[in-house]
């Protein structure tokens, strides 16, 4: 066997050297032309081109569309509108009353998104934390339970929404169960309050597993000797939770909180399939407003949709800056500040 492999290895080695020489020669020539400091651009260039084409160019185009009006798709055919689209979005007698706004649906979407983000993220972080704490203990079938909680994360949002729609619609599974118990059917998806509740519930159900996993990893990184020392000092379980677990879990909690918030502000697909934004506009969120304005209306107002998407981008940017600031602070900690 060795006798067969040895020549093969030497052939492969020789081929590799030839290939490297082939690359080496032009690279050396290029380095002579460009100079050592500039050769780095050769390596980052392709990535910069991709980033520029698929990230920065769309941002520039988005700005351009936000500053133009009409229904034409080609930029050259769109008349300049200045800040007209933003003025239309922000034209309100009172920002606290969406009905008083020119684009009432935009403001309803803004308020719905804010309410959804606060409720969904707050509850999800709480449930994910409790679940992670339980799954971190030595319970029977721990691996199985971890799988159970993570499973919904693997499903497509559309599949999640369709499953729950099947459960919640008027003649769905849940009302069938109620009817079997002699109770009248409930309008789970046509009553505004119930629909909002279920949108939050389904979103938590679908995404909690991912955040539980992050927190579980954070819990497992806490050195066990701290708990042993606390136990020797007869610290109560509550004290161990508040003085050891939560402070040391804080970096993971911050990540979960900010990632969850960003995701909640961007919510669209599963809600769109589950409720279509209804009843009325009770579950219409900002991304759906952008989609409807730009693509689902017969008369497509790309400029207005682009302006709304810039408003969304600014709020996401703020959230990201908050995340960076908090995570820097939590990574540095009091000791970090001392060093600084």
């Amino acid at each position, binding site marked *: 066997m060795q006798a067969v492999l040895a020549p093969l290895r030497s052939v492969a080695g020789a081929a590799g050297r030839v290939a490297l020489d082939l690359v080496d020669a032009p690279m050396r020539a290029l380095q002579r032309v460009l100079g050592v400091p500039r050769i780095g651009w050769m390596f980052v260039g392709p990535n910069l081109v991709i980033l520029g084409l698929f990230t920065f160019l769309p941002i520039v185009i988005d700005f351009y569309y936000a500053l133009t*009006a009409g*229904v034409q798709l080609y930029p050259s055919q769109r008349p300049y509108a200045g800040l007209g689209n933003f003025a239309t979005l922000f034209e309100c007698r009172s920002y606290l009353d969406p009905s008083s706004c020119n684009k009432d649906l935009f403001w309803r979407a803004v308020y719905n998104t804010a309410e959804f983000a606060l409720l969904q993220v707050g509850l999800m972080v709480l449930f994910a934390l409790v679940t992670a704490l339980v799954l971190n203990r030595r319970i029977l079938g721990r691996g199985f339970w971890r799988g159970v909680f993570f499973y919904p994360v693997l499903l497509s949002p559309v599949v999640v929404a369709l499953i729950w729609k099947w459960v919640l619609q*008027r003649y769905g599974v849940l009302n069938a169960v109620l009817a079997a118990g002699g109770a009248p059917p409930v309008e789970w998806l*046509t009553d505004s309050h119930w629909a909002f509740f279920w949108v939050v519930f389904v979103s938590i159900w679908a995404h909690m597993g991912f955040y539980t996993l992050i927190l579980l990893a954070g819990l497992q990184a806490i050195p066990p000797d701290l708990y042993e020392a606390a136990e020797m000092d007869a610290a109560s379980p509550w004290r161990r939770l508040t003085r050891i677990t939560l402070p040391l879990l804080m970096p993971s909690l911050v990540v979960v909180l900010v990632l969850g918030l960003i995701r909640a502000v961007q919510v669209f697909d599963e809600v769109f399939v589950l409720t279509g934004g209804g*009843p009325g506009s009770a579950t*219409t969120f900002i991304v759906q407003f952008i989609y409807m304005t730009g693509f689902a209306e*017969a*008369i497509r107002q790309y400029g207005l949709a682009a302006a709304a998407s810039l408003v969304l981008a600014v709020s996401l940017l703020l959230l990201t800056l908050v995340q960076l600031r908090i995570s820097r602070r939590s990574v540095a900690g009091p000791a970090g500040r001392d060093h600084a």
Partner: protein
Amino acid sequence: MNARSLQPILALAAMAVAAGTLGAEIRVACYSDGNECAVTQDLAKRFEAQNPDVKVIIDTVPYKAIVEQLPVQLAAGEGPDIARVTDLGGLSKFYLDITPYVKDPKYWEANFGQTLKWLRPSPTDKGIYGMMTQLTVTGPFVNKTLFEQAKVPLPGPKATWDEWADATRKVAKATQTPYAMAFDRSGHRFAGAAISMGARIFDAKGNLVIDDGFRTMAKKFYDWNRDGTMPKEVWGGVGGNTYRDAFEEFANARIVLYLSGSWQISRMDKQIGRNFDWIAVPDPCGPAACTGIPGGAAFVALKRTKSPKEVGRFLDFLASEPVYAEYMARTENIPAHAGVARKGVDYKVSPAARAALDVFVADVPNLSPIAYAIQGYKYNRALFNPTAARLGQAIVGEISLDDALKRIASDIDEQVKAAQK
């Protein structure tokens, strides 16, 4: 180099030339209400047999793709060569005039004259842009079995909306059916009933307007949804202008009367079958008319095509009298072709479907001129979409009916202005 060694090269060159000059390919984006795309596929094979230089590819797509994705594709200069569309006037700027490519433009005028204008970008235009693959009429279907069980007589052909509401409520109560009536969640369906109630739809200058007739129907419709005559989940269950039909509710005998349209006949026939007796009835009346809205889907030629001659030839084939008659018979649709309509279509359908088709065909002469006008109006969706969105909001109690009507008016104004920029 001898002649034998040249043979393979010559053969390859010949094939390349053949592929370049003979292999025109046409892509058709088709959505189905029933079996339209399957039948088109069959007919395309026959066309290909007669025209070996043309390959026709039928891409069956969901209706949502036609409504939401196709306009964006077309605006970007992309898309198929032919598409089956329902926004007839709204997409007209993307249509290709096939007059130079059809054998006899006069044949098209004589047989499709009434509907060709729906596809034209302006009233003065005389181009041929495609052909209606069906003529639809909105109208109600009724669960006759429930009427018989309730021993309530069916209202007559000139019955009003109020009479139908009373009768169906009695039937629903007697048979413990959850709801009396339902409309598809569509401003298009609502518009027919509104015109019957006296809505003029257009003002003297030809602009869309929300008038007393429209308000009267909106109030009735709102009340029917709020008092349980209609299921709130159809119009209130989703948001925005999302389309939702009430077919499932009707097919499961959960409503007595269902306002939809002639395109549902094939689905009724196949899915309800003999579960109960269903019939189509003439459009209920209001003080102004007893009308539904005409409409339908059209195969249109698109400007971006690189094979205009072949596109014209294929549409000419589909529009020819025997092919069109076969298409109507197999898809169970009402013909838009005057000659085929005059001779009658040999529908191979059940007696129930046949009777329903007869009712819709007989309803065509009763359609209001306003109904034709709104169907042919380029920005008709500026009325239809806000109607669904805003009345939906009012029905679930998010805004008052008055506010909904004001919002419909302002949405129309904003959208038409945006479109004209």
